[in-house]
Structures are given as C-alpha cells and as structure tokens.
C-alpha cells in the first residue's frame, strides 16, 4: 500500500524533474529553508502554512515527510532534507525532487519536531493539495479531512474538484465536504439549509459532530434544521448502537470460544481439569512472537504471512508440550480428575516461569499484519478487521474440530475412549495413544487460539491467566463434553456481557454475567446442553 503510493509518487516526481525547472521552485526552496531558522512549533506552523499557500503540488513531499517526522536539518549547513532512516545513518533526500543527496550520521542532523496540532495543520494543507490526486483513496482521505475541518476557503477548490470528479462516491464525499464548509461560510441561508440536509443524510458520527457545532453557533432556520437533523441522526445511531453492541458481543464471544475450545477437549471430553490450558494459549502467542521476530530480521517481506506461518507452528509447539504433559503427568491421574487440577496447576506455574525466564517478564511485541489492521464500515457500524478475522477463525477452528470429532476414525476412537475406556480397549483401540493424542489436540488448539489472541492482547507470561477462568465458565455453562454447548455458551456470554456493558459498566457487567452463570447452573445443573437420560449414578 505504502509502497505503491511511494512508487506512484516517485513516478510523478520523475516526470516532474524531466520538465523544465519550475520557476517557483526556487521560491519553494526559500520557504523550506525557513524550517531551519524558525524555533518552536508556531514558527514551523507558519512555514507550513506558507508552503501550503503556494498551492504547488511539489510541497506535498516535504509536508508529508514533516508529518511523519522525517524532515531533518543538517547541522553543518542548516540545509533541510527528507531523511530515510537506515540503522545509524540517515540517507538524505532533496525535499522537492526526492533525489538522494547523501548520507549523514544521526548525530549530524536534527529532526524537525512535530506535534499533533502541527500534524493536523499539515493534514489539512495536504487535503487541499491532494483533491486531484490520481489515487481515489487519497482523494477520499482528502475529502474526509476537509469534511472534518470545514473552512470557507475550501469551497472554491472543492467546487473545482467536484466539477472534475468522475468517481460518484468520491464526488458525493466532496459535496459533503463542501456542504460542511458552506455551513461555516457566509453563504445565504438557503445554501446552508441545503448543506444541513446533505450532511444530515450522511448520518454518521462526523456529521453529528459537525451539526452539533452548527447548532450551537447558527440562528433561525439553519439552527432548527440542524436540530432536526441531529435528532434524526441520533435516533438512527441509537439503532446502530444496539447493533454495534451485538457485534461487540459476537466478537467477544469469538474470543471466548477460541480460548475455551481447546479446554472443551481437554476438560470437556477428557475430564482433565486442565489449569495449564491458559499457558498453552500463551505458548501459542509466544510462538507467534518468535515467528514474527525471525521474519522481521530475516524475511521482512513475509510479514503479512507471519500469522499463517505461525498457526501450524503454534499448534505443534502447544501440542507437543501437551503431549509431554499427558505422558509425563496426566496419564497417571485418569480417574482422579480433581488431582489433575493440582498437577496441571503446578505445570502452569512451571510453564509461566519458564517463559518468563526465557523471554523476560515484559510484554513482547506482536504486530498486526496489514490485513488485520484497521476497520471498515457497514452502515454506521465500524467493524475492525482483526475482530472479524478472529470471528472467522474461531468458527473455522470450531468447524474443523467438529468434523474431526464426528467424522473421522480418530474422533470416533476419541469418543469411544471417553465413553467407555475398558470397552474401547477391548475393541482393540490403543487407549493410551488416543488419550495422548486427544490431549495434544486440545493443547494444540489452545496454541492456535494463542496466535489469534496475540493480535488483541498482551503477549506476556500472564496471558494465560486472564483466560482460564472465562474458559472454564464457558465450557461449564455450555455443558461439559458438548462442543455445541461451548459454541453457544461462548457467544451467549459474550453478547450478554457486551449488551450489559454500556449500561452497567465493564466491572458490574461482568459481575452480573457471573451471577447469571451461577443462577443458570441452579436451573440446569449440567449446563446448557446436558445429556438427559438415565444417569448411571451410583
């Protein structure tokens, strides 16, 4: 994305440099040189405004560099350059042409500091300059900026841009941005009323924000129209809010499902009260970290694939640790489920401390690949990509697991062993292996859950502890030994929690959910999907 944009820019500038040197270029350089003399943010802001006022597309490069903190002053001669950091040295590029002019050690140059205010000024300035950019997404960004920072001076360039625009979507955005600017201009009331209508139709939070400001400042018909528009936006947003909460609930549910699904195997199917489950999740997250570390240092191009690469590895790592735990400890404890609680608790302490000793106690950075960053809008609903992918992922894992359990010979053996170990053994099933592999499967799934959770949570030795209680709640709520129960349990707990949260607050919401679980278990002492029947109870 950035690469593409940079390539495009380079092309533009290559072409520009072929043209006869622009007479204004010297003027621009003179202005840019002022960066070196001014001190303080206000001085730099003045320079930025001056540059922007030239309206020359060439200023985009230095301004964009400034916003990203890449504009430097060489101490020796107070020349201004765009810098590209590469290790300890910085390669210096000409601020206008972008040609490389040399390298400098970091100590020989000073970075021009920017702050948020300055960044905003630059963004606004770039907004006007990029209205005619080739890339529609840049134009959309420009329209967006201008919508949020209405200015009467914007109307003219916007009019021009609207006239030239061919893309209907962009054009509509331009018109909204223009309407926003009209509202702060001294245009006649009729124009303003039309603008309010246009903005009201947009119906999102930005529109609401703008109209609230208008309502506060305007008089007469415009004020009334704004009030009406605000009311209508508010009522539609209220609906969207409800939808938003449900979506958040589903998303939380998917996280719970991921965290719990491995436990649904080790605890639900095998009856091992697996307190080390959270640590399996943690191992998966750390595997992701290691994979990303290797990719960062050796194969930076593969970064977007890091999670895909990490998945099988996390499964393997967690599954083999699970296998070791099963062979080493748990197999001696079948039929004594409560003792598995004690042993696995011990194991969890050891694993936590081991990770702490190896990786240190601090959080590790696990990055989001680009396809998991950001969000998109469905109506007024902002859906973040990482949450969506985690939902998809959780459902996929669930589906695959269900298939394995219900449709493969291994799943059949697994169920046979848990239903009646002795009978299964006498049918020729090698029960020890089935046990070991089942536990490894549950652990491995916890591991791949860790890959996904590393995207939204801390990767630290404490990662597992945060999920273990919730996981047990989900499995028990859904009914031990029933995968569907875990699915339904996770989503219902997630949704109830998130629907309560805006009213009760995060803490009370969670308390209410816990109390509901306690009450629910009274009603159905074996969980949501308990098997009814002639319980063989002695």
């Amino acid at each position, binding site marked *: 994305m950035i690469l593409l944009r940079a390539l495009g820019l380079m092309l533009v500038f290559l072409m520009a440099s072929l043209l006869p040197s622009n007479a204004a270029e010297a003027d621009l350089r003179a202005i840019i040189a002022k960066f070196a003399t001014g001190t303080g943010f206000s001085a730099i802001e003045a320079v930025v405004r001056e540059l922007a006022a030239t309206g020359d597309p060439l200023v985009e490069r230095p301004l964009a560099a400034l916003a990203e903190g890449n504009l430097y002053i060489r101490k020796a001669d107070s020349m201004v350059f765009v810098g590209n950091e590469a290790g300890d040295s910085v390669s210096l590029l000409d601020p206008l042409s972008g040609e490389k002019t040399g390298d400098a050690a970091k100590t020989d140059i000073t970075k021009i500091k920017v702050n948020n205010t300055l960044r905003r000024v630059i963004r606004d300035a770039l907004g006007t300059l990029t209205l005619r950019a080739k890339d529609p997404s840049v134009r959309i960004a420009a329209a967006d900026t201008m919508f949020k920072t209405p200015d009467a001076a914007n109307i003219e360039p916007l009019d021009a841009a609207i006239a030239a625009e061919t893309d209907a979507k962009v054009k509509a955005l331009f018109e909204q941005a223009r309407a926003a600017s009209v509202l702060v201009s001294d245009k006649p009331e009729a124009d303003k009323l039309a603008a309010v209508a246009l903005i009201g139709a947009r119906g999102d939070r930005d529109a609401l924000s703008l109209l609230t400001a208008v309502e506060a400042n305007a008089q007469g018909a415009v004020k009334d129209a704004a009030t009406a528009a605000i009311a209508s936006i508010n009522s539609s947003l209220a609906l969207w809010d409800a939808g938003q909460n449900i979506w958040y609930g589903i998303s939380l549910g998917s996280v719970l499902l991921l965290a719990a699904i491995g436990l649904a195997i080790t605890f639900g199917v095998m009856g091992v009260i697996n307190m080390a489950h959270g640590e399996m999740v943690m191992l998966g997250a750390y595997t992701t970290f290691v994979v990303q570390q290797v990719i960062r240092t050796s194969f930076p191009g593969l970064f977007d694939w890091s999670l895909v690469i990490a998945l099988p590895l996390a499964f393997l790592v967690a599954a083999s640790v699970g296998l070791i735990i099963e062979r080493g400890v748990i197999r001696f404890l079948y039929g004594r489920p409560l003792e598995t609680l004690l*042993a696995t608790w011990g194991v969890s302490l050891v694993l936590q401390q081991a990770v702490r*000793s190896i990786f240190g106690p601090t959080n590790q950075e696990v990055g989001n690949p680009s396809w998991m960053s950001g969000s998109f809008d469905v109506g007024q609903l902002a859906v973040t990509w990482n949450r969506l992918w985690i939902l998809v992922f959780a459902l996929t894992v669930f589906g695959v697991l269900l298939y394995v359990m219900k449709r493969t010979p291994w799943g059949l053996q697994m169920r046979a062993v848990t239903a009646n170990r002795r009978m299964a053994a006498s049918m020729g099933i090698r029960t020890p292996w089935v046990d070991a592999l089942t536990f490894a499967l549950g652990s491995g799934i916890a591991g791949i859950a860790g890959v996904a959770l590393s995207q939204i949570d801390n990767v630290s030795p404490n990662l597992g502890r945060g999920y273990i209680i919730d996981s047990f709640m989900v499995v028990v709520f859904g009914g031990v030994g029933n995968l569907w129960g875990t699915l339904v349990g996770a989503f219902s707990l997630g949704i109830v929690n998130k629907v309560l949260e805006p009213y009760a607050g995060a803490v009370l919401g969670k308390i209410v959910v816990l109390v509901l679980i306690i009450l629910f278990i009274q009603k159905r002492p074996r969980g949501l999907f308990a098997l009814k029947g002639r319980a063989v109870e002695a």
Partner: protein
Amino acid sequence: MITGHFFAAGADRRIAITIFILLAAAIIVPLLNLAVSPTSAFYIPSYIVALTGKYLCYALLALALDLVWGYCGILSLGHGAFFALGGYAMGMYLMRQIGSRGVYGNPILPDFMVFLNYKELPWFWTGFDHFWFAAIMVLAVPGLLAFVFGWFAFRSRVTGVYLSIITQAMTYALLLAFFRNDMGFGGNNGLTDFKDILGFNVQADATRSALFAASAVMLALAVFVTWAIVGSKYGKLLMAVRDAESRTRFLGWRAENVKLFAFTVSAVMAGIAGALYVPQVGIINPGEFEPSNSIEVVIWAAVGGRGTIVGPIVGALLVNAGKSWFTGLLPEFWLFALGGLFVAVTLFLPKGIVGMWDSWRGNAKAMRAAAIAEEAGADPDVPPPPKIVRSAATTPGAWSASGPEPQPAE
C-alpha cells in the same frame, strides 16, 4: 476389626497430640518472644511469630476446606471468598478503631473515603466500631453467604465440577465487586494502616504474640470441633454423602441439608481464619478473593492429605513455609520449585503426606494384626463365618484406585 480399633485409637491420639501441640505453642511461642532476651538461643524473633501466626490462619482455612472437600466431596474453589469476607469484617472494625488518627484526622471516615469525597459512612459500615458486632459479622457474613449459596446449589443438585466452577465464579464475582471503589471497601488498596485492636496496638510485640496465641487456640478448637463433627453420626453421614450421595437419599436423608450444614460450618471457620489473619498481616484487600488463592488452599489440603484432620494443617504449614523460603532463597526460580512440588505430590503422594503415612502404617499394622489373629486362632466373640463362597474375589486395595473420590466430570 482390630485394625479398625487401632485406627480409631491412632486417629484420636493424633488429634489429642495436635491439640496439645497447638495449645503449647500458644503459650510457649509468646513466652519465648516476649520474656526471653533477644540474644538468647531460644529467642523467637517477632517476625517469625507474625509469620507463623499467619500460617496458622492458613492452616485453619485449609482445615475448613478439608471439612467439605475431604469429608463431603465438595471441592470448593471459592473458600478464599469466605476467608476474605471474615477478613473484611475484621478489617472494617480495625478501620473504625483508627478514629481520628488517620492522615486526614477525620473521626468517622476512613482515609480512603475522605479522599474519594464520601460525605458520610455507608450504611453497611455502621456497627463496626464495636468489636462484638464485628465478631458476629465475622461469623455471620461468610456463614450467610455459604448458607444462601449452598441452599440453592445443593437443592438444585449442582455437583462435582459444576459446583467447583460456580464457587469459583462466586469468588471471582466478589473479587471484581470488591475491586470497585464504588463499593465502599477501599477498592484495590483494601483496608490497611490499622492501629489498635481492642485497645492494643496491633504492631506491638505483645499484641502480635496474643494474636498468635489466639490463632493457635482457635485452630486447636477447630481441630476439636472438626474431629467431633467427623466422628459423630452426622460425620459418617457426611462421608456417606461423599461416597454415594444417591444412596443416602434413598435411605431418606436429605443430602442437600447434610452438605449445607458442613458448607456453612466450613465457611464460618474460614471466616474466623480470615479475621485472625487480617490484624496479623495488617492489610485486607480484594486480592484475597483471587480464584488462584482458593486453588492454593486446595493444594495445601491435598499436599497434607485430604480427608484427614491433621493433613491440611501440615500441608498449609509446609507449603507456606516452603513458599516463604523459596521466595527469599530462589526469587527467580521458586515457581519452578513450587510447581514441581505440586506435580510431584499428586503423582507420588496421591493421598497427601498424612494419608501416605497412614497407609504405610496401616499396612504395617494390618500385617501385624493378621499375624496375631493367626496365632490366636479364631476369635471367640465372632460367630463362624457363613459358608459363602466368594464369587469374585476383590484384590485388596483395588477399590482405592477408583476410590471414594468425588467424581466431577461425567
């Protein structure tokens, strides 16, 4: 039958010894702390008194848990909640005793309420300026919670792991609730900066020794009460419920009431432990509600030997002493040692230290008894055994593999 008698006698003797040791400690330790010069070899430094006093409270908590877990098969993963509630009741009393000596000098409001702009004392703090009231609350609050919780859970026949998990949910919910500053219990910081208990300075060596003695006496009392309960017909019923709940129902017993009584008594014991703990450590905060704390209590009982009275006490003392030792000696690696200990105990000492000792002794005794019986020939008291041919001879001890275990998951 001879072994049965021996067991009974052995168990009773052990209880008597335990009670004796505890009572002796209640006298000797304070003496060695207060009356012996610090240079003497017999001097017990104050911090050891405080430390062991704390361990005794843990031991009481472990014993409380064992009453329901070891004897009734209810694995509570929420006993820390009762402990903490007892502690909070005591803490509230201690807070009120600070009076106007808080940093703001407010005679009514504790410091944390002052800087959080409370205008008046919340209603649930009334009465806590009296020790008797606080003492009642120490018993009543955990007891009532356990009673209400148990009433619903046992009537609905929530058993096994489901019960364990909802007890965990209970303590977790309380943890979150007490973390909330709006609750009026001091939030995360909890209650601290205590000055006096019953007019004595909590930091004085004499007070500390007295608290130690109180803990030891209380533990001795709890040992006696537990022993009395377990030895009564009700105690037999308790174990019957543990081993075959439905059988007791078909005999006409209300298993839910049996459990409820034990659960409530146990919660009250835990509450007392918490109340003694707080003045000795000088702080009570929501961290005590952490589910992991409750799990640790389970581990103490397991290490020592559940289903015995002395076991949980031994377990609590050993594990905590080990923890104190490791955290000072191997600060970076003590979790390995602790984790390893839990795994090792479950694998190699499934019945805990005391349980293992008993089986070992029991085997030896049984062998000796068998030898005696053989020498003496048939026992004259007993009618000759009926001529019943055993169809399926059970291997001795085979039952213990599946054992009288509380079975959680299906």
